[in-house]
């Protein structure tokens, strides 16, 4: 579901391993993977919360896949996937959603307009 933006990705990524706690503000151009704990503000293209992961604060991402827990406030501009072990508590906004049986949604849930597709400017060279 979530694009892998690991070592081969041109976009920067971050991995917070199990047992690691991080507080603060992060802007991640690629994928943020959280198996530990993160509290604070996170802006990323995609967010993957592992089974042992816990994320809370102001989270703003394009795509999210949740196997652990996410506190408020989560804004997913495109696709939100909550796996069977995942739980979202607090306020959550999404454009598209999928929740597996066993997944938890608690709090205020809101659908938002889908993110506008990125416009790519392509230069055209005449072949003559």
């Amino acid at each position: 579901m979530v694009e892998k933006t690991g070592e081969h990705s041109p976009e920067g990524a971050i991995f917070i391993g199990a047992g690691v706690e991080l507080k603060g503000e992060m802007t991640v151009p690629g994928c943020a993977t959280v198996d530990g704990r993160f509290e604070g503000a996170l802006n990323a293209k995609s967010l993957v919360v592992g089974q042992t992961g816990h994320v809370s604060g102001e989270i703003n991402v394009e795509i999210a896949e949740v196997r652990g827990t996410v506190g408020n406030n989560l804004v997913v501009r495109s696709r939100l996937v909550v796996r069977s072990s995942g739980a979202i508590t607090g306020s959550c906004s999404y454009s598209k959603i999928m929740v597996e049986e066993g997944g938890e949604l608690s709090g205020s849930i809101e659908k938002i307009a889908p993110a506008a597709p990125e416009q790519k400017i392509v230069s055209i060279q005449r072949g003559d």
Partner: protein
Amino acid sequence: MYDCSLITVPQHEDEVAEYDWENFPPSMHRKGKTSFCIIDECTGIEGKLITRTAFVHGQVRGLVFAEHVTVEPTGRVDGVIFCRKLTVLGSVRANVICDNVLVRNGGRLSAALKYRTIKIEPGGMVGGKFQRRVIIDGQARTPAASAGIQQAV
């Protein structure tokens, strides 16, 4: 003679949470084989609908109290739903207390929802205040279990 007027509709959230669906009268009558209701696309109901299984293709405003409720793609329910299993392919704007919720592709659920399990398929849309009922010692509980239910009938 089956008399549905003898069925007591739960008035409080904890009554719904602890409701004994195994002894739900419509499910017990003739083993539930004849207790179902289809509301067709051209039919609207205002009031209370009590049955074992409800298939809603039309519109219901009021209370739906059933073991299984399926709101079909053309269906719409506004009001209150107490059920064991709710499947949404159409539109629901209601206070919902149920055990299992399934929102299928194209289904729209806008609700104050208390549930045990939820599944949302791709293409389903949900919104509102959601709360999971946790099971303690075999009984479902929510933090505000003692609060009354606002019935929008």
